[in-house]
């Protein structure tokens, strides 16, 4: 899969790179972060978009105003988000479930509010900061291909790290907390340490994703792009993709981001086949939402454990039929 991702710019057009692949893997990374705290550690968080905003603004301020090199700025974006994430995560020690959701929901509003209000951010009355041209060690990252590789390298490294992390001692501790936190803590898993660590890692991923939005995708940090509905969408990504699955985070991101576009384009093509003008444009535009909603329902009923489960099911079916893909045995990714 990695080989495919690396080869993509040679095969696909600029449209696919800039409009499809880059946003999908950026949001996939953010969804992976949320999956760590929600899917693995079992703590619902509704502030993922706000953490992305924190990362985006920290990175663009660091790079644009203070000239911090881009890789460090990305790291800094993640770090700032992670530190705030730990603070936001503290209520998780006392409350869980819906109550925790409301507490993290508050963080979404407070962070966005602060980014608009604190004059130091310089976001001003536009609540937006643009980045200077992205350069790393003298190399210009202005072409879509260069941006894509920048995003891909960061996302691939962090995915690898995340994948190993959830299979480590820490990951097992998180899952123990998810299943029954009191039982886990009696057996010696420190609630304080691991719950806060989950929030730390999760918001770090969001922060990095946010800074990638700036450097790799839109070129600007803008408060409007991180409203509550984005947090809900990211939550939707991991639910549809599969809670507690690394691959599912990316599949879910692709589903939520790309399917509406696919439906819209497909319907436009079909409508054009009939000569155009037979179906009003308003019906076409609204039908997209109906079809998308129906597909979400279909997939959740068909496979409540998410797309990742479907994917592995498909892989093992192919495996049984052909005897190839031995590597997927034992769960794989």
């Amino acid at each position, binding site marked *: 899969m990695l080989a495919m991702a690396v080869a993509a710019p040679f095969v696909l057009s*600029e*449209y696919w790179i*800039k*409009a*499809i692949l880059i*946003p999908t893997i950026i949001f996939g990374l953010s969804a992976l972060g949320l999956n760590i705290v929600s899917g693995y550690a079992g703590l619902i968080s509704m502030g993922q978009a706000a953490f992305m905003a924190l990362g985006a603004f920290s990175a663009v301020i660091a790079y*644009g*105003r203070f000239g911090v090199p881009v890789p460090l700025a990305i790291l800094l974006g993640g770090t700032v988000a992670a530190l705030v994430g730990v603070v936001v995560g503290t209520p998780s020690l006392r409350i869980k479930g819906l109550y925790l959701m409301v507490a993290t929901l508050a963080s979404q*509003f407070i962070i966005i*509010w602060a980014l*608009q209000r604190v004059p130091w951010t*310089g976001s*001003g*009355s*536009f*609540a*937006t*900061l*643009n*980045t*200077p*041209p992205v350069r790393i060690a003298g190399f210009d990252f*202005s072409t879509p291909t260069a941006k894509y590789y920048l995003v891909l390298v960061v996302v691939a490294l962090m995915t690898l790290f995340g994948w190993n992390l959830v299979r480590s001692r820490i990951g097992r501790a998180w899952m123990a907390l998810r299943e029954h936190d009191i039982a886990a803590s009696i057996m010696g898993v420190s609630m304080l340490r691991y719950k806060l660590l989950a929030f730390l890692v999760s918001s770090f991923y969001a922060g990095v994703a946010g800074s990638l939005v700036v450097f790799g*995708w*839109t*070129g*600007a940090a*803008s*408060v*409007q*792009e991180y*409203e509550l509905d984005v947090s809900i969408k990211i939550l939707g990504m991991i639910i549809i993709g599969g809670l507690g699955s690394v691959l599912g985070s990316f599949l879910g991101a692709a589903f939520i*981001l790309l399917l*509406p*576009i696919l439906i*819209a*384009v497909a319907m436009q093509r079909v409508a*054009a086949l009939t*000569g*155009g*003008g*037979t*179906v*009003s*444009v*308003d*019906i*076409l*535009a*609204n039908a*997209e*939402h*109906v079809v998308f909603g129906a597909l979400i329902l279909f997939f959740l009923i068909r496979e409540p454990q998410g797309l990742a489960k479907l994917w592995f099911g498909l892989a093992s079916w192919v495996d049984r039929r052909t005897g190839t893909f031995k590597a997927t045995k034992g769960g794989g990714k």
Partner: protein
Amino acid sequence: MKKAGMWCKAAWAGVAAVAVAAPFAVNAQQYKGEILHPMMVTRTGPFATASTGVTAGQQDYYTLVNMAGGIDGYKIVWEECEFEYKVPRALECYERYKGKWKMVYPNSTPAIFALAERVTKDEVLAINLAGGRSDSSDGETFPYLAPVIANFWAQATSTIAYIGQLEGGMDKLKGKKIAYIHLDNDYGRQPFPMFDELAKKYGFEWKSWALSWPALEQSAAWVDIARRYRADYAVGWLYGQSCAVPYTEIAKVGYPMNKYIGSLWCGTEDDVGPAGPLAKDTVTANFHGVGKDFPVIKEIEAKVYKAGKGNAEPARVGSVAYNRGVITGIIIVEAMRNGLKAKGAPLDGKKVRDGYRMIKLDDARLKQLGATGLMPNLVFSEKYHGGMDSQLFQKWDGTKFTTISKWIPPDQAMVQAKIDESAKAFREQTKAAPAK
């Protein structure tokens, strides 16, 4: 691309209605060629109400131009890309039609911010009438962005000037209290610096009531404004469905309806209509004439709609949102025409941008276009991308708007100073040298 004539409301009910296609008349007119003009549209979601009117107004104007032989013999054909007023979808639309754009008009301030970098690199002008970045009036710092008419800062100063007029002079504003109720985003927050400076200059007091999107719950704010703060005037900066909310709240708390002044984005029938007679006497700003009493609108009715080629329900023709669409259409066609004349076919984004900078809509030209009184005079240049315009104020009589003021100009010096300051900050943040 041929468009069906019917705009079908029944779609909302999920009725699979099939609109009757406009008769595919054999095209007697011969065109020299076609100009493909992709359009970003919002037909779904909370902002669709006004946005569909703006889209239809543009398309009807293009149809009218095509029926008269096109732009110098070139036919305008358009394709729609639905983006739901959402930023990621707007970026996707932009990439889908990349290289085909002549001028980008998303009718969404957040989308303009996100598109800014790309359009500048690809040399396509992105416009947002009476919106977008206020400082993009500075065409040198923002060579591919334009607010076209009445940027937010001009709007804010003009609205305060109107209040001054009601009071009988700007000096009478001293000691007055103005409540500012607004969406808490880059649209609602842009007037802040202007209010601050005006308050200092004229000695009035103002306070912000920020509402987070979609701002459908406003009762606490209005109680506060009417009973505790006891504002002399309330100015609203809302959008879409939230525009209709204040009227019930104002009636409930007994605040005088004529002291509430909405921004021009709350000035369409779709915004105030739901409140109907309840909103009687309320005032909103506007940047253009209302109604059908303009030659160009009448011509559209007589030619386009008679031939069954209209893109809106006939009843929407002449509504505020619709007229905005026609104005947008006039500006875009004018830019294309100038671009064709100066640089020749085939058109691309840069040629249309150059054409935009040559726009000179003076009294004579507006008369030719049949748009006298519909829109203000507009003259653009390389340095000036529009935005320093006056506003009209209109009163709601329960069923329709009537214009009740003359053109009220903005505080030019103050707005210009802010544009310069903000453009400078932008250049420093992005370290971009002023483009030549």
